[in-house]
């Protein structure tokens, strides 16, 4: 049993509270990613699970047992640190053997396990080197090996990939996924990189300012963000938000009055909608979709473009604000011509004044 239960947990440093009474269940055998901007408290939460930080209030249970007062090792967790925390004066072999030495395992058993782990991580050639003679990716793997070798119930990762270059990061991501599947381990992974979160996680926990904003599978948080913060944080480039002045319902659906007074017709939307969001990848040029907006020549202006080769993001300035959209590379937007954009109303996200997501009545 290695389910982690977090009940009403708060953390104070002196007088400042950085985590405000969080409840969370981390399921056994899953890879859970704690995601959020820097300073949101995700690392602190991880360190509280690890036992490196005291819990100011609340209870953390691992496998049903309260661990608040247990030392890290008694919790059965292993951790991979952002800077790997390899012991600089010890060889790879001794680094990996260290946890087993602490556990007073017999020497033969230690040697056997080091060899097995080294094989799994393809570290056999490096066993007698010092950390300073390793590349970033190799150090990362040694750190993983040192965490794995104790066969912990729970793996904790504190931004372990952020010191690697882009290519290596992708490879290590796959590696971690593979290990997770093979070991069926419970893993908690802290990152501020949403791509890492989306590709690795079974479940994403999005945090902001010491509170949990949403817990869900990657697709859930992408498709049904719980609030404007999550909607804007997940997805790159970020979702477009358009302020709504008024929603008028009629037989065909809702008619929205936007910030600049123009109107937009969409399917039935909740009456208290204060803003709507639409992802750049869901906007089309032309009148292909059911909801549409048209702009006369001179009403729209291009403020930039990012070309990715097969597609490009266009940044437009429109009467009701700025808008980002994904367009085919060959698409030309001419400021001297009228412009029409359209999208599927089902792709619209509705948010209330306080940023909360509003569910549309089932159509």
């Amino acid at each position, binding site marked *: 049993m290695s389910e982690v239960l977090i009940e009403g947990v708060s953390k104070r440093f002196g007088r400042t509270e950085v985590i405000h009474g969080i409840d969370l269940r981390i399921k056994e055998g899953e890879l859970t990613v704690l995601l959020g901007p820097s300073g949101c408290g995700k690392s602190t939460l991880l360190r509280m699970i690890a*036992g490196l930080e*005291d819990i100011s209030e609340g209870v953390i249970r691992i496998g049903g047992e309260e661990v608040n*007062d247990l*030392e890290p090792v008694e919790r059965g967790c292993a951790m991979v640190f952002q800077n790997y925390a390899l012991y600089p004066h010890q060889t790879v072999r001794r680094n990996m053997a260290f946890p087993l030495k602490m556990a007073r395992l017999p020497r033969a058993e230690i040697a056997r396990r080091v060899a097995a782990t080294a094989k799994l991580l393809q570290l056999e050639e490096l066993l007698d080197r010092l950390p300073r003679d390793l590349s970033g990716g190799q150090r990362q793997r040694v750190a993983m090996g040192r965490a794995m070798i104790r066969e912990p119930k729970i793996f904790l990762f504190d931004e372990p990939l952020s010191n690697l270059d882009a290519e290596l990061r992708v490879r290590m991501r796959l590696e971690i996924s593979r290990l997770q599947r093979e070991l069926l381990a419970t893993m908690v992974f802290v990152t501020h990189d949403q791509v890492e979160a989306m590709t690795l996680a079974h479940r994403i926990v999005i945090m902001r300012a010491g509170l949990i904003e949403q817990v869900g599978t990657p697709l859930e948080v992408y498709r049904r963000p719980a609030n404007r913060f999550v909607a804007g944080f997940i997805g790159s480039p970020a979702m477009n938000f358009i302020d709504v002045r008024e929603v008028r319902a009629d037989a065909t659906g809702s008619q929205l009055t936007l910030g600049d007074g123009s109107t937009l017709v969409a399917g039935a939307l909740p009456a208290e909608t204060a803003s709507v969001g639409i992802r750049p990848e869901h906007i089309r040029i032309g009148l292909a979709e059911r909801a549409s907006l048209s702009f006369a020549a001179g009403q729209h202006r291009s403020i930039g473009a990012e070309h990715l080769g097969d597609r490009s993001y266009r940044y437009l300035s429109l009467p009701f604000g700025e808008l980002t959209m994904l367009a085919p590379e060959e698409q030309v937007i001419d400021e001297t011509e009228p412009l029409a954009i359209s999208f599927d109303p089902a792709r619209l996200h509705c948010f209330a004044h306080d940023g909360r997501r509003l569910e549309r009545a089932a159509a």
Partner: protein
Amino acid sequence: MAGSSTRGAKRSWLRSRAGRRFLVDLAYAGPQLFLYVLVQLLPFVIALPIIFTDRLDFLDQDVAWVGLDNVRAMLQPPLVDRFGDALQRTALFALVNYVMVYLFGFVLALAMFELTSRLKGLFFTIIYMPWMISGVGIGLLMIMLFSSDTGSLNLLLKELGFGRNVVDVKSEAGTLITLPIMYGWKTAGFNMAVFLGGLLAIPTETIESARMDGARYLDRVIHIYIPQIVPSIIIVTIFSLINSFGIFDELVGLGGLSGNANAEFLSVFVYQLGFGAGATGGAKIGTLAQAITVSLLVFLPLVLVAFGLNRLQKRLQYH
């Protein structure tokens, strides 16, 4: 009831993780801290009340409170002259010594900073070497070099035709000139290292940009180097001040405990008051209480000055 419950709370706190961590910290910091309090802070606390008594020495059985008599004794005959002379010698020495810090340490550091030659290491090794000599050794070297009739330097000068006994280490002026020179010679390497450390910490961009702006060498020293090595300057100042007023070993070497009146600086005076007829000779001239009184009178203001400078240093650290 209330007492036992707080004790219970305390025990459980010690068992909590924060409590255990405190105990671990204490286990590691404790041994040295215990020693430090016992042989350094406690003596300081013990010393304080004694200044208001007539305690002769530590074996004195008949001790009475005398208020500020010990301070008064310093300002009256027979001690006032010796105290005044010692204070004057010490203060003068501190001043000259401070100048020597710059003449030796700073100038050498500037030279070493500019030097690119491979001889740098050798020079550093040699310049730092006198730092290994004990204070007594410095005193004896001064006797060896500057004594009248037998001093090597005097003999050399005579040989070269500069006349007999150009310097006399045991004369008032002789002590005051030769002591700072030899002390500066001894500490040159140390002071140079402190200044050099400061110079090396200056970001080279600021020096290069000053060069681009057309600053000559002296301008660079005054406007770029010195403002950025203020922390080094303060460290050296504190060291120099404390060492100057506390100078003792060198004076023992000069015979301060065995009859050389011109080597009676404050620390020797204090030693004579408190210990006097020790193994090295000399006569006990006062009481233990008077000795501690003088130390406090002289050194407490110094402690405050040094503490202030130390704080200033923390504030002025740019890097």
